[in-house]
């Protein structure tokens, strides 16, 4: 029996202690008509060896291309130590630290994580993680509604420069609670949100304004002006940020005169592998004054009976297991192990290391854009600076170009046509620190080839 340690003798002894004749008898309270014998679609057991071979083949099948896609998930070098330690059984096979004394490892680590995230975002307090960046924005919207007691409107301004899927997820999760997400237009020349685009809500009751930095298009918003606009109208500011970019960029806590009120985003760039989109983790930080409105676990430092410092879950009265229907969120299991990885990642890199990764990604993307836009039929679509993604405009539809590149084992980028039709044949490209000069030249060569072979539509 795979993983089940009972001997025949054990079973007999145990049944005797229970006073049952068979294991089957233990199920005698289940209405007989409901019991099943077959599980259709479930194959016979295979050994670890067989599944190893199968999974090796399947992994190999998908491997080997050079990836220039970003669009919310970024390929960064992850130091080997990160996952060698993160997958230690003591982290990997523990659960939520309900028994603080038996979980000081995880608890101290989360406290350290919270400290790092607070400093990175320039805010006071952090939770212990949410599911991912997109759902974190939904939670931030719900939190803003709770925190902004002045506002009655449940209205959140959501620029189109926020990742489109974040908007969809926010709508799906928070939409049924009467929250109105108002989309704010952007300037197609720069790919950013002009303060003027907020004018329609100039005199409305706005609960919060979401400000992405960098934008989904890689561009940089005028965060100070947008923040001040919101605060001037009593709206809270929700920053959606790439945490890696904060090694270089101004932290949300310092935006405008007063700083953003909530920062959230996708934690994946901090040591979490791409792995098909998850598990990643959402992060969220805020001002101390809003801490009781924050969803998710929070770890606090305290002392034990002997006065020795230690760590424990705190402010649990916000959470579903205490407050039930009145909780700040239904979240329970979050993304603890990813936070473990991120904390180790940030410790290994430090501020200077993160800055180098960010700067190198920035420089590589610039090089990539230079190389690709030198080709006939390709041009930069947006003016202004970008962080580590940029939009290219083609003289033909992007889809077939990407397909042709894929047959050459180059993933050329993210096709913007569906979500941003007004940008034309637009492609979002990204070259992180993992890309070498040869990689970039390889992409440019492949693209030149493809463009030559494909006719302009």
């Amino acid at each position, binding site marked *: 029996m795979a*993983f089940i340690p*009972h001997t025949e003798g054990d079973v007999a002894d*145990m049944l005797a202690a*229970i006073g049952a004749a068979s294991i089957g008898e233990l*199920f005698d*309270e289940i209405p007989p008509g*409901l019991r*099943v014998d077959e599980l259709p*679609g*479930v*194959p016979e057991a295979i050994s670890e060896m067989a599944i190893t071979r199968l*999974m090796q083949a399947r992994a190999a099948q*998908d*491997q080997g291309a050079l990836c220039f896609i970003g669009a919310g998930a970024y390929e960064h070098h992850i130091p080997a130590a990160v996952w060698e*330690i993160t997958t230690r*059984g003591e982290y*990997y096979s*523990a*659960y*939520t630290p*309900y*028994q*603080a*004394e038996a979980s000081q490892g995880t608890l101290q*680590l989360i*406290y*350290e994580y919270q400290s*790092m995230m607070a*400093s990175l975002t*320039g805010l006071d307090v952090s939770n212990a993680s949410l599911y991912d960046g997109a759902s974190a924005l939904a939670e931030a919207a719900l939190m803003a509604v709770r925190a902004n007691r002045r506002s009655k409107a449940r209205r959140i301004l959501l620029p189109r420069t926020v990742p489109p*899927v974040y908007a*969809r997820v926010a709508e799906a999760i928070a939409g049924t*609670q009467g929250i109105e997400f108002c989309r704010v237009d952007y300037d197609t020349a720069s790919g950013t949100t002009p303060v003027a685009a907020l004018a329609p809500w100039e005199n409305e009751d706005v609960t919060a304004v979401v400000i992405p930095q960098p934008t989904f298009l890689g561009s940089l918003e005028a965060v100070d002006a947008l923040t001040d606009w919101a605060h001037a109208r009593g709206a809270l500011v929700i920053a959606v940020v790439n945490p890696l970019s*904060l090694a270089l*960029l101004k932290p949300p806590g*310092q935006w405008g005169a007063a700083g953003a009120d909530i920062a959230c985003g996708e934690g994946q760039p901090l040591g979490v592998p791409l792995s*098909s989109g998850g598990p990643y983790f959402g992060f969220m930080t805020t001002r*101390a004054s809003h801490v009781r409105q924050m969803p998710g676990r929070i770890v606090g430092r305290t002392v*034990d009976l002997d006065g*020795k*410092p230690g760590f*424990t879950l*705190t402010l649990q009265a916000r959470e*579903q*297991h205490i*407050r*039930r*229907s009145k909780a700040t969120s*239904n979240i329970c*299991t979050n993304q603890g192990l*990813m936070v*473990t990885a991120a904390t180790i990642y940030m*410790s290994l*890199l430090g*501020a200077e*290391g*993160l800055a180098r990764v*960010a*700067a190198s990604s920035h420089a590589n993307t610039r090089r990539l854009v230079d190389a690709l836009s030198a080709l006939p039929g390709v041009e930069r679509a947006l003016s202004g600076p970008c962080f580590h993604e940029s939009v290219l405009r083609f003289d033909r539809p992007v889809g077939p170009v990407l397909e042709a590149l894929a047959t050459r084992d180059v*993933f050329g980028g993210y096709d913007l046509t569906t979500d941003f039709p007004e940008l034309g044949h637009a492609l979002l490209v990204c070259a992180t620190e993992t890309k070498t000069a040869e990689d970039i030249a390889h992409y440019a060569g492949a693209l030149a080839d493809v463009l030559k072979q494909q006719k302009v539509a």
Partner: protein
Amino acid sequence: MTEPLIFEHSRAGRFARAQAPVVREEVELPADCLRAEPPVLPEVSELQAVRHYTRLSQRNFSIDTHFYPLGSCTMKYNPRACNTLALQPGFRGRHPYAPASHSQGFLACMFELQEMLKGVTGMQAVSLTPMAGAQGELAGVLMIRAYHHARNETHRNEILVPDAAHGTNPATAVMCGMKVVELPTDADGDVDIAALEQAVGPNTAGIMLTNPSTVGVFERKIEQIAKIVHGAGGLLYYDGANLNAILGKVRPGDMGFDVIHMNLHKTFSTPHGGGGPGSGAVGVGARLQPFMPIPVVGREGDRYRWQDEKDLPQSIGRLSGFMGNAGVLLRAYIYMRMLGQEGMRQVGEFATLNANYLAARLKAAGFELAYPRRRASHEFIITLKRMAKDQGVTAMDVAKALLDYGFHAPTTYFPLLVPECLLIEPTETESKEALDGFIDAMCDIMERAVRDAEHLKGAPWTLPVRRLDDVRAARQLDVAWRPGSVDA
């Protein structure tokens, strides 16, 4: 010995890394976008980081080191092969937007996982995207809501929830814009049918049930409940947190549930990671299939592809940035393939055997079962109200004392309706010897409660810290270290 904070190992100007790019490239960005001061992150060497986090890890109890009978959480062994294989470069490095042409290996796993989950639950279709049980619940209630709305029954805004339900159930219902109607539990742990009949009505959207329930017994009147709720036009939601108890024995789809979530990190043994990631994959019957969260994986001939809003225009939409916790899903897939049909049946059987054995032995030793007339499912409740009254030793004290014996504590004070309770779930991967060791410890504690209650109230004595001051933690909130903050 205490382990200092990583920040206390930090020294300004230290940079002993091989992991960062060897130079800092120039950045051409407007000054007003840039930060003035670097963030306060540790400046430590690779050795210091490795040593610190290795030492910290040793301050955890975990399945890999301790018996961990945390009720409702199914802390069973997480096969190491699942981890090794899911972390292969081909899986680890796959971008979520990689073209389907370069994703067939991964998609094949996801498709087959969907099929297997249909088989073990008796549902019509499965979406893997929810990222934990609570998000599965959210998906489920949103689907119920969407279903009623699609039928123009927008007034159906009440969700029935037993009083013993997990906190995520009512919290989720509210997040979906529903009202929660609480149902009482009868003396034997079943839903009070009379109260249910009273509670249902024209506004009933549905009911959320766990079966076996959170009090550790199988809800015997499930078919009757289904009839009543369906009769009132409501739908049935199955909270799959306890699926381990009945795996291969009875299926929620056959009990009449319209929608379910599964906690893959429980029943299908992906690791709990110190608090996630999990997966709350949802299964649906025919009625709710159009509303499933996207994306799901479809097959056409021998090719796999994502199905999205174009395929499922009535979908409740997306709940995550990409497709959910793919890496967790791979682990569940690997686990299920290693178990197969027969292995899954054995999960339910031996999880149940272990729980009933533990319950019988503890009862014989004088502990009070909350539902003594019932079979235990994969878990069961004991109440220590007598000990609390007679010796002043609470469930919390017993939980902390167990740590000194080298056992993680069971779940305490949940469900709320049983006073001074421990919810105990041994799981099928624990040996009889492990259970016997736990029983010995419990008996010892019971005896000690009479002889030396103060010892128990002071427990734990052997861990890195003694009992922590939760009240102070909440009152003198210290949730982030700051440079210059004095270390306690």
